[in-house]
């Protein structure tokens, strides 16, 4: 008995908890499920009552099924089916159908109903429940048939309650029903301000010439607080007329609003309309605003110039320049640049000579779009003389200019002129990777002017080829200051790295090596690392034995950069035996870089990591080893990585490696990897690492006893 009671109590508590949990879940909302089979009209007998069920899931599913029925019937080419389903849905709109269900049915008719459902929906406009009336109203509003339009107009005439009258005005006007214009126009003179507002908005939405006339007739007399609304609705009519091709009628409305007694907002909107309807002829009106005293209008008015394309408009915009203040001139110049119309170029070039820095800055930017080869020297000069944003604008324009002969003009600007301007031209040529300017830039690497020389040497990083190497190497040999040496080395290495004719590059470097002194010799040794091959390797090995520590280090760096495994044995030897830790670390980094290359087999990778691990105690190097091990799918790689997870300096990288290797091994992960994988799961904050670790843990087979 006691047991039975306990069991019953336990069951009751469980049921209560489940019920409570269920109630909690449903308060968060229930998602509908799609019906398993396509619903049919006959299913409505069940679906309709279910769509008002207190069981939310049943309700949601039934609503979904009704919607699927309606949407399917409304497909193109199924007109008879659509009509039949609409009528079937409408037939269920009887008082016996629960309100909730009726609302849903009406909403389907909003989407698929036509003339056949108008009588039923019209009847519902008098329903005692507001929600039914309002839903039916919206369904009629959306019904495309002429019958729906007639029904709504009749309902508007009948409407007595102010709120319902507004609702009907909305319905008729949102259909853009021109036949409703007269009725709505009468209401624009109503005593109720809310009705007046709805009527004015309605006329604005209908947007015909008659609607515009109706607004014009009452506008002056509307309450003060509705004047802006009336103005906006009048403008909307103008916009619609313009869209319909009735430009003159639209322009007349814009002109009527563009009077001093209207608000700034309305006048600006009207001005825009005039610009759109009259084109270039309206641009002087913008000039009048700019020259006027209403600062609140100026910037917005100026923005309208962009709305009018064409050379006539460009000329009209240019004509504004003498009439406006400096700040506005800068904006007009910027606008001319954005237009990209060559008709504006002369004005832009003129602005580049202006005394105002803001105007000049805008001009340089505009030249970036409008300018050509003839403007290159102007921009180079500006970049050299100006400061700050002005100089930046000129530089950017030099880089962005497009068109024929720009690079040729740059070459000319590099070759002669003011040294500072030549330096700017060199910078631009480098940024543009202007091959046409490369010979001139190369010649400039030997220039008498230090600044020109330095920029030219830097520029060779982008512009130099194997043919440039002898001259560049000669310059490198003569460099006295660190900046020149660094720039020369950087360019040398870049050219060697991308050389297509490695033999030619190698010949230039090896030819210069015997006679070169440090630091240039060091640069040449490093360059050999970019070229690779047995001859280069032999030279670098020889340099390893150099008594000069800097040359020795350069050789180590060169090996560390080597393109293939030929350098690996020497790198390992340096890592094990070099007297300087810096060189050991450089060598190990290079060695591990080779170990990580895609062409390494798993065995090679693991073997090289083993060798590297034996050479170092440094955490930074061990992290690199872990990075390489992570790409090796092998038990030995895993065995090497696992212990490192206990080192606090390495745990994050070890976690990544352990998880990745283990995931790649699938079912082969041994039991003894479990602690490391569990540690990886705990240590890492990376979702992928955690997921990989968990995945691998699941696959560990229990050890056989």
């Amino acid at each position, binding site marked *: 008995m006691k047991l039975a009671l306990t069991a019953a109590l336990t069951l009751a508590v469980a049921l209560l908890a489940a019920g409570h949990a269920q109630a909690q879940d449903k308060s968060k909302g229930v998602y509908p499920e799609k019906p398993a089979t396509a619903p049919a009209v006959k299913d409505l007998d069940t679906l309709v009552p279910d769509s008002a069920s207190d069981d939310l899931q049943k309700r949601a599913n039934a609503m979904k099924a009704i919607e699927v029925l309606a949407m399917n019937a409304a497909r193109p080419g199924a007109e008879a089916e659509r009509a039949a389903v609409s009528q079937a849905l409408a037939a269920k709109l009887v008082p016996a159908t629960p309100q909730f269900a009726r609302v849903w049915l009406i909403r389907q008719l909003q989407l698929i109903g036509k003339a056949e459902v108008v009588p039923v929906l019209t009847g519902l406009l008098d329903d005692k429940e507001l929600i039914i009336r309002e839903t039916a109203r919206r369904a009629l509003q959306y019904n495309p048939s002429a019958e729906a339009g007639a029904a709504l107009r009749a309902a508007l005439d009948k409407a007595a309650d102010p709120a*319902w009258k507004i609702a009907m005005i909305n319905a008729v006007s949102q259909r853009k029903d021109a036949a409703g214009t007269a009725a709505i126009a009468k209401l624009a003179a109503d005593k109720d301000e809310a009705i007046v507002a709805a009527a004015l908005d309605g006329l604005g939405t209908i947007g015909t010439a008659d609607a515009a006339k109706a607004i014009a007739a009452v506008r002056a007399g509307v309450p003060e607080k509705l004047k802006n609304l009336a103005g906006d609705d009048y403008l909307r009519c103008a916009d619609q007329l313009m869209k319909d091709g009735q430009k003159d009628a639209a322009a007349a409305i814009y002109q009527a609003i563009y009077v001093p007694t209207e608000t700034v907002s309305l006048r600006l909107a009207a001005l825009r309309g005039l610009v759109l309807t009259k084109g270039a002829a309206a641009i002087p009106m913008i000039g009048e605003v700019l020259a006027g005293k209403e600062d609140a209008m100026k*910037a917005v008015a100026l923005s309208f110039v962009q709305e009018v394309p064409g050379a006539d408009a460009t000329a009209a915009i240019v004509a504004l320049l003498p009439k406006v203040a400096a700040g506005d001139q800068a904006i007009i110049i910027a606008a001319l640049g954005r237009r990209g119309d060559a008709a504006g170029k002369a004005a832009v070039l003129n602005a580049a000579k202006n005394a105002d820095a803001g105007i000049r800055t805008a001009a340089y930017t505009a030249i970036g779009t409008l300018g050509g080869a003839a403007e290159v020297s102007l921009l180079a000069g500006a970049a050299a003389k100006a400061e700050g944003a002005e100089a930046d604008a000129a530089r950017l324009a030099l880089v962005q200019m497009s068109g024929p002969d720009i690079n040729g003009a740059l070459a000319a600007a590099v070759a002669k002129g003011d040294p500072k301007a030549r330096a700017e031209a060199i910078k631009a040529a480098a940024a543009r990777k202007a091959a046409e300017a490369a010979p001139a830039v190369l010649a400039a690497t030997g220039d008498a002017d230090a600044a020109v020389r330095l920029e030219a040497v830097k520029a060779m990083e982008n512009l130099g080829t194997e043919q440039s190497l002898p001259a560049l190497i000669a310059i490198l040999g003569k460099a006295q200051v660190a900046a020149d040496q660094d720039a020369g080395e950087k360019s040398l290495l870049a050219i060697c790295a991308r050389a297509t004719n490695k033999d030619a590059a190698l010949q230039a470097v090896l030819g210069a090596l015997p006679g070169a002194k440090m630091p240039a010799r060091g640069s040449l040794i490093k360059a050999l690392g970019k070229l690779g091959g047995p001859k280069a390797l032999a030279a670098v090995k020889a340099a390893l034995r150099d008594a000069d520590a800097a040359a020795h280090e350069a050789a180590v760096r060169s090996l560390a950069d080597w393109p293939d495994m030929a350098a690996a044995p020497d790198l390992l030897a340096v890592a094990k035996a070099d007297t300087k830790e810096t060189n050991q670390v450089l060598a190990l980094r290079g060695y591990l870089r080779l170990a990580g290359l895609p062409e390494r087999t798993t065995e090679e990778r693991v073997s090289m990591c083993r060798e590297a691990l034996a050479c170092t105690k440094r955490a930074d190097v061990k992290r690199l080893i872990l990075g390489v091990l992570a790409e090796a799918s092998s038990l030995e790689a895993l065995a090497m990585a696992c212990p490192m997870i206990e080192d606090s300096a390495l745990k994050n990288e070890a976690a990544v490696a352990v998880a990745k290797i283990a995931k790649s091994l699938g079912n082969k992960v041994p039991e003894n990897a479990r602690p490391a994988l569990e540690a990886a799961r705990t240590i890492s904050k990376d979702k992928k690492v955690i997921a990989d670790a968990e995945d691998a843990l699941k696959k560990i087979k229990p050890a056989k006893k």
Partner: protein
Amino acid sequence: MPGKMQLSRRLLLKGAAAGALGVAAAPYVITSTALGAGARPPASERLTLGHIGIGNQGSGHFGSMLGNAGVQILAVCDVRKTVRDSCQKRVDDRYADERSSGKYQGCAAYNDFRDLMARQDVDAFIIAVPDHWHALISIAAAKAGKDIYCEKPMALTIRQARAMVSAVRRYGRVFQTGSQQRSSPEFRKGCEYVRNGRIGKITDVYVNVGGPSVEKQFPEEPIPEGFDWDFWLGPAPWVLHNAERCSGNYGGGWRHVRDYSGGMMTDWGAHHFDITQWGLGMDATGPVEIHPPESGKFPTLTYKYATGTLLHHFWSADGKAQNQYKLPEGKNGANGVLFVGEKGWVEVNRGHFACFPESIDTPLGPGEKPLYKSPEHHQDWFNCIKTRQKPICDVEVGCRSVSVCHLGNIAYWTGRSLKWDPAKEEFIGDDEANRWLDRPMRAPWRLV
């Protein structure tokens, strides 16, 4: 994303230039005061703001603007009294020293945004209300002569989005859609590579966002004290209150309910379809075909552009259908937006960029065209308020991007393939599908 950029509303004109576009006249009285970074400009030179909707997303904007010395919040508006009272207090506390000196009159709190529109002293609004309200409030703001930052997705329907464009253009307003991914460097880089042909002709794009909104059902719950439920519903159909129905939580709430939103297709789609449009250079147009899974043409919903590019919604209700796609070698999913071209692929998401071949990941060359570079999404809006240029997510951009989201949803809801005319913005040969382009508003609300 909220940032802490300083904004100075007035600019030095003589002898100074701000940015490559030159100095621009602000829409206000121009003074000659230049202000350094970090200094709080005088009240007359700050941009005055009103915040409408201060929920999950709105509170982020609100907090950011509260910390921006170049901005002054004058008003807050929310249909929850507790929220607007608390925000009002935070604003007043923030500017307490100015209030005591008499320079600041206090922050006003409103339930009805129309009362806020009438304020002559507010320059601009940040609108972060649920989607079904975006159009009405934005259009009212444009008519009131205010500049607008409106959260994405820009509108509940395609027609509402187009009405917003009309109003913004009519009144010459600066409108920034809250699709802030365009202001992030990784997205810009990805789209620049795609636009400049680095991966060749784009054959497919895969966008990984969730599905459409549905008719969720909720039990009735009491309306909390101080919550104007009728106003929250606004133009949406009347229904009984439930807390989850109107909750702003990102994982559920109103975002999943069709009367207020388009589900994850718009909530995240307004980000990732927007990036797709940007990468494909389709900001002035859209796709021409949409095929839902029921059509059997593709494993998941797929759009087709006039160029032949296919855009696949990388999602399915069963979570499996998208695995049928043959993705490029090495890819087993789409992280955000995956552009696939004839010569490689580019994948972008927040804080993520990947490409193949890796060698294409280099700075743009002189012959290549950079895309609009926004310094930060709010800052870009502020800059454009000064220069009157179109910001990076201008209203037309927002309209076209949200249209892509809605086109997909309409295909899901009708269950059939659709043909779309992006110039006329209507479906071809499917009048019933065209009825989904808008929703009739509950009276007295109307789209104007």
